[in-house]
């Protein structure tokens, strides 16, 4: 898809975050992903871009959809994909992150996809290995492929991103999805709002160029995109918000609150959803929900990211 004779169109060896990507880089990945959608829609889903390459999924945090999505993306591009069972590996026996990285590096993988509970852990690992590293989520920092798949979904449904108003609602404080989306959507010219109780807002978030709302009515007013975030169960019980009941009443997206947004506003959620906590079933399953499409775009985006990084692999 890319002309190997020229300078690589995607100038980065790793994908560690949206931060550091130019609008051009992002658009390049989105265009690549757009083309990759067809890969998964055919009977013959196999490509040969990564044939002979090894991709390791290194998920220190449990994940279903992201890990499966990367695994499929890797396999459809012809790579050998290995899922590291971190829970039963030597990591559990006390091995440090760097030792794990060095060990894996010695096995000569081409791409490592990493998720880790600590912000910055993926960057640390990237410095210690020779292969390409993809951040599949580090703590509350970044989750770049999620933001890319969200952007692709928006672009396909709205035809553009520039000039749209996107309201990201819920637990911003603990959300890497929110941070990556704020960076990406802002970079592409969308107006980004965050809507959340103060207890779930990172201090100083307005300096990231977003408008802050603490009320759903005001926050959704005139929004084109309503992006809901998951509220972790352990955060519903009084530490950050009083209860799931109160959270749903004031910050959960139901039909009544969705009415504040534009009539053609679309609803997104990175999943997995908590029905009746941050989103009502009628909305999650309703005609304006893009939640299932997001999952499909997830595979396409990850195919695109792997393809883009493949250009930099030795002998690539």
């Amino acid at each position, binding site marked *: 898809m890319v002309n190997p004779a020229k300078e690589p169109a995607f100038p980065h060896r790793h994908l560690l975050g949206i931060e550091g990507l130019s609008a051009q880089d992002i658009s390049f990945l989105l265009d690549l992903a757009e083309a990759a959608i067809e890969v998964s829609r055919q009977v013959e889903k196999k490509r040969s871009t990564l044939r002979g390459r090894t991709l390791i999924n290194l998920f220190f945090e449990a994940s279903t959809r992201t890990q499966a999505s990367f695994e499929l993306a890797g396999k459809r591009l012809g790579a050998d994909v290995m899922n590291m069972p971190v829970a039963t590996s030597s990591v559990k026996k006390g091995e440090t992150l760097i030792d794990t990285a060095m060990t894996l590096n010695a096995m000569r993988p081409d791409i490592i996809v990493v998720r880790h509970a600590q912000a910055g852990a993926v960057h640390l690992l990237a410095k210690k290995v020779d292969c390409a590293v993809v951040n599949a989520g580090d703590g509350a920092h970044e989750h770049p492929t999620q933001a890319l798949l969200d952007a692709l979904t928006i672009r396909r449904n709205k035809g553009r991103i520039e000039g749209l108003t996107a309201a990201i609602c819920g637990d911003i404080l603990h959300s890497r999805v929110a941070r990556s989306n704020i960076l990406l959507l802002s970079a592409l010219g969308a107006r980004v709002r965050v809507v959340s109780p*103060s*207890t779930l807002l990172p201090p100083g978030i307005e300096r990231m160029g977003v408008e802050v709302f603490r009320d759903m009515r005001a926050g959704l007013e005139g929004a084109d995109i309503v992006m809901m975030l998951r509220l972790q169960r352990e955060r519903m*019980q*009084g*530490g950050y*918000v*009083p209860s799931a009941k*109160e959270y749903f009443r004031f910050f959960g997206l139901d039909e009544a609150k969705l009415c504040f947004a534009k009539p053609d506003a679309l609803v997104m959620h990175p999943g997995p959803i908590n029905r009746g906590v941050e989103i009502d079933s009628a909305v999650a399953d309703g005609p304006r929900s893009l939640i299932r499409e997001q999952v499909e775009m997830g595979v396409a985006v990850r195919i695109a990211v792997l393809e883009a990084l493949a250009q930099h692999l030795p002998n690539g």
Partner: protein
Amino acid sequence: MAESEFRVKSSSTTAIAHRPLVLVNARLIDPAKLSETMGGVLVADGLIRDFGPAIASANLPAYARIIDCGGDCVAPGLIDMWAFIGEPGAEHRETIATATMAAAAGGITTVLARPDTNPPVDEAAVVDFLLRRARDTGRVRVLPLAALTAGLDGAEIAEIGLLQLAGAVAFSDGARAIRNARVMRRVMQYARDFDALVIHYAEDRDLAGEGVMNEGEFASRLGLAGIPREAEAIMLDRDIRLANLTGARYHAALVTTALSLDIIAKAKADGLAVTCATSINHLTLNENDIGDYRTFLKLAPPLRHEDERRAIVAALESGLIDAVVSDHNPQDVETKRLPFTEAEAGAIGLETMLSAGLRLVHSGEIPLGRLIAAMTIRPAEILGLSQGRLEVGAPADLIRFDPDEPFVVDPAKLHSRCKNTPFDEARMEGKVKLTMVAGEIVFEAK
């Protein structure tokens, strides 16, 4: 008080409510302007329709009911921001019925009920219960305070949004301070989103320790463990810093020391949404009144040194202290007739708050207007209430009182279910003659 008469508020609007009621020949106290004039107040449909020098019996329609006040003071009904009422769970100490009789007789027309009841007011259903009980059995308005933290445990944020929707007027953990600063920070952040007023009882429980009275010479002579003034100031200082961090509206339930006043003064100078109240007891009594281990004067926070009392009075006069509260806390004989250390803290105060406050007026320590403002318009402003002011269109919550009528406090005649008054047998000047809530007379001395 056999010469008095109580009337239960009628819940329906009757023809009588439409008949204008006029108080004439009164010394009108306007707490907003800290001014007074001779004149009258015209009341109809539960509201103040007009007031001023022009309202006199000569120019009123024949069908109006006219009450000649004979030169007595007429002021807005008092708003008490801090009272323990006992319902639910401590009905043997007080009920809404008995507390509001005491309040009506004392000129208090709005009472904020502390939420540290059993069960605590931390669920919308309890707020609803209180509002219905108040409607059915209360003689004056009872506004529920609801919990800041679930179960008043100081750990998890209470359902502030749902409690507010149910009718909670403000939020507090009662006489339990929130120890953990991280919890307090989150509570204040969350309350801020709902523009909910956080009322906190500022006491560092660890520093207060086993103390039972003010720390100092007198406690040492009595052989009692003291509570340093810093127990209040340290917590208050923490709270103000968190109010600054979070932008929450913060009200200190009870300030009793000059140290606290410095903190409040700075917070106000910095433009923070910070207010405070003190109790009628701390304005009019000091630690020496404990005398021979009188447990009725065991209070929380404790009565302080006379220097502190003077500082509190001066701060009330300057407006630094916004409100005066009764800190009504009925305790029965079983919890008071005990050695000082073992006795419960607290004193009743609804019925004597105004009379005790008038002591300060008679002694020249504070002007009448300022005292009334701290019991009416300032609480109304802090709480966002329409009553508590002499204004056309405001609810006709009014009181008539003779500021000079002498009497001796006889606990047996007080209406509270408990008789633990610190003013037992005290001589006072100033009695409430009539109390009106929403244009209806709920108490009248005969």
